[in-house]
């Protein structure tokens, strides 16, 4: 069998071996101890490209994509509008098959994209500087926690219980190496308990991590939380949804020291959870503690403005064990997607997208709470485009009722929170049309009717009981 990605012919291989001056390939592998050579490799045989396509098509067909149903699933990754031009330009192989831009003379394209990306993140977050991207929002939050420890020389981190539980878990995992203590601040009614924050903050606390909108979709009392953190000498770390920042105050404007988040929604497919991108921004005075790559503007030998990776004395390839982080590869191509997205959607488009999501989410929530057996779990909180629906029955049953009508109704919170068996996180974006909202409502009212009928036929007393509750 010959391989289309391997251009050497057998004749060329023989020529090359003789140019090297060896008799065969075994001579080149001779440094490997003989007893380690020669084993069965439990892999499939090779396949033609057509067979590769067929195999991957077969696997893809065993999945049910969001685009084939009405999806209200979010919690950190969400189906959103992706302008066609984004993937078209991002697919250019001058971008996708380039290496990290360590040679600025032949990487100005990638470098200028990074500079524009950093600028857009800084604009959205209201911070002075942003880096070139992190792996995802969760690992960016963990890096922010470690960065707060480096800056404050303290070793204790507070994480709100309303931070996405998987983010909190990543923070704890990263913290387990340097033995940083991570404590959870409980929530009250779906939002940060400020009294608990005040109680738990101490002179040994490096940082307070708060997410807004939080994992329940609720807005947080960020100004008060930030003031409490500052008073205790801790850094205020805000985890933000970049699209929400079209309408919500920039964290830099209310005193955030570090802002991180996930940029999947900025034009990247959900892709079963990755690759997405994390972003990270901070104040000017902390720039030398920022992990990851940073692109800066400079001039070349001809005096013309140009770009280069800079402040590399923070990074592993220069500082080794003294680096701010071990991060090397980031999510450059996803950051390019985000840059293209933000350039296309632009100043007014992002506001409109966020507004449509907020309006449709509130419309759905308003009508759901008018239905028997459904309420908001946290009715006293403001929310953005996600909310927690509480049912009089297990959330799994609600999901099943919706699934019967081709609706993916949300994420059951029992996935993470004990005692939340009746709670469902519902996510609404611009991709959920008014018809989708109607279908959601219709599915639940239909299921209500049919279960009421069922009960009135089979056990009449139950229906009467229910009506009197």
């Amino acid at each position, binding site marked *: 069998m010959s391989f289309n990605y391997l251009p050497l012919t057998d004749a060329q291989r023989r020529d090359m071996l003789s140019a090297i001056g060896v008799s065969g390939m075994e001579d080149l592998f001779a440094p490997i101890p003989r007893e380690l050579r020669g084993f069965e490799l439990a892999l499939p045989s090779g396949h033609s490209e057509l067979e590769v396509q067929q195999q991957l098509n077969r*696997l893809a067909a065993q999945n049910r994509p969001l685009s084939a149903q009405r999806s209200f699933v979010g919690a950190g990754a969400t189906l959103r509008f992706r302008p066609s031009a984004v993937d078209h330009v991002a697919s250019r192989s001058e971008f996708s098959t380039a290496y990290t831009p360590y040679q600025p*003379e032949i990487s100005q394209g990638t470098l*200028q994209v990074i500079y524009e990306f950093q600028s857009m993140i800084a*604009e959205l977050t209201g911070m002075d500087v942003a880096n070139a991207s992190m792996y*995802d929002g969760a690992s960016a939050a963990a890096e922010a926690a470690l960065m707060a420890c480096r800056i404050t020389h303290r070793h204790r981190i507070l994480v709100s219980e309303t931070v996405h539980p998987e983010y909190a878990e990543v923070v704890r995992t990263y913290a387990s190496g340097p033995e940083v203590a991570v404590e959870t601040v409980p929530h009250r009614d779906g939002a940060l308990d400020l009294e608990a924050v005040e109680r738990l903050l101490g002179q040994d606390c490096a940082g307070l991590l708060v997410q807004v909108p939080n994992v329940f979709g609720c807005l947080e009392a960020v100004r008060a939380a930030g003031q409490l953190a500052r008073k205790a000498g801790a850094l205020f770390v805000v985890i933000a949804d970049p699209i929400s920042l079209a309408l919500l105050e920039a964290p830099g404007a209310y005193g955030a020291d570090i802002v991180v988040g996930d940029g999947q929604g900025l034009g990247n497919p959900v892709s079963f959870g990755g690759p997405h991108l994390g972003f990270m921004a901070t104040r000017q005075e902390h720039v030398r503690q920022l992990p990851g790559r940073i692109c800066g503007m400079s*001039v070349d030998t001809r005096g013309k403005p140009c770009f280069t990776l800079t402040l*590399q004395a923070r990074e592993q390839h220069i500082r080794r064990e003294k680096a701010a982080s071990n991060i090397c590869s980031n999510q450059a191509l996803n950051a390019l997607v985000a840059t293209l997205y933000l350039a296309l959607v632009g100043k007014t488009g992002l506001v409109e997208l966020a507004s449509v999501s907020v309006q449709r989410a509130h419309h759905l929530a308003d009508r759901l709470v008018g239905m028997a057996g459904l309420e908001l779990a946290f009715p006293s909180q403001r929310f953005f485009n996600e909310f927690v629906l509480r049912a009089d029955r297990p959330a799994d049953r609600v999901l099943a009722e919706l699934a019967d009508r081709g609706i993916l109704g949300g994420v059951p919170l029992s996935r993470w929170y004990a005692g939340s068996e009746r709670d469902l996180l519902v996510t609404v974006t611009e991709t959920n049309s008014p018809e989708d909202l109607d279908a959601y409502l219709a599915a639940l009212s239909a299921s209500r009717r049919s279960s009421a009928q069922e009960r009135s036929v089979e056990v009449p007393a139950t229906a009467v009981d229910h009506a009197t509750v």
Partner: protein
Amino acid sequence: MPTLIFDQSIPGRRGVTIPASGVPERDLLELLGPELLRQSPPELPEQSELEVVRHYTRLSQLNHSIDTGFYPLGSCTMKYNPKVNEAVARLPGFADLHPYQPAEQVQGALALMYDLQSWLGALTGLPHVCLQPAAGAHGELTGILMIKHYHRHHGNRRTKVLVPDSAHGTNPATAAMAGFEVVTVQSNERGLVSVADLKAHLDDQVAAFMLTNPNTLGLFEEDILAISQAVHEAGALLYYDGANFNAILGAVRPGDMGFDVVHQNLHKTFSTPHGGGGPGSGPVAVSERLAPFLPVPAIVRRPDGSYALDFERPLAIGRMKAFFGNFGVLARAYAYIYAHGHEGLRQVSRDAVLSANYLKARLGDAYEVPFAQSCMHEFVMTSDRQKAQGVNTLSIAKRLIDFGIHPPTIYFPLIVHEAMMVEPTETESKEELDRFVEVMLQIADEVRDTPDLVNSAPHTAPIGRVDEVLAARKPNVRWRKPQTAR
């Protein structure tokens, strides 16, 4: 420098249209509240679709890339990225999947991950695999944290990690990030780990020894079995940095060499595109004793043949990122392995090793090769001789740009002066290899005859050499709206 997208902005222009909400609208101030409602929108560009497309298309044309030219970048494995991989990763059945969909809706994706795990297990000889880490360094951190938790679980609080002086920067950075003290082990005169120096450093405080094999000089650590034995006798574990795995596919397995944990770089060995710096994917494979510490969730196959996520791992280190890993990268790597199969992957490494040795043989007269033995998939040469003639490695690297060739990795590993680390990969034709040789020989002649030509290179790139000092001294890392006084 093309004008920044911000400075091209024209108020009132737009790149997309957004549908109306189609529902009765409420006042945003009422919904979001006065405390958090933003006063003025972020200063994003205002451009039509064509302007945006043209701007970024032009930027793309300023890049060197695999699809436009040779990339002999040592330790980076810049091989061709097959296009079918791009196509399959974009199938809606993969791209439009949510990590929280019920398992019965994502069986194909879980099957793909399960098979990829088992294939990586077969290639590494370490059967327990986690696909979650997002990049090589992320996999390193995963592996080193697992080692930390393993020792803790056994009642040891070992404080040190050993790394060779030839190690990638991520190795010491990872160990430090995981809270370890880093101790350097010397290389010997043959460019290999000094087993004597290693043994001198091994004590009951050493948690692990991190090693790349073949190492960053492209040399196979021939004493690997002695190294492995010494490390384990000291109660430490052996970590394998998979950056150079492209050399040994199907030829030798880290598990057989005695390694306890391996990270892979799918964006190197398994041909997924580097993307200008990412995304990567850094799966870890571990031995039996480390398996209980792998991150959650695990992807398991049930007796009925269906796939599921298993969160019940009480000793797991936790999570390294949200969700399950860079799935889109995993799909590409799956397609790559499926296309090559066992015989194809073996041929990949054979051709990669052959090509590196061929270049080394052809360039060994004009440039100095500090370690004479045969190399694996890459080799290191020095420009010591050229430096004596007044031209350093940096200038030779920059001169290559004028011939449409990306410079090799330079000034690394740190133990070789004026180092140039060359990794051709298996996907370059002999004609391209020969052209590289001709260019390198021509540059050696230029160094002798017209050194200024080399010292002032590049001449044909979009820009000349960059003032790095200015960039670092007066950092300008973002655009700001001109009229805003801040």
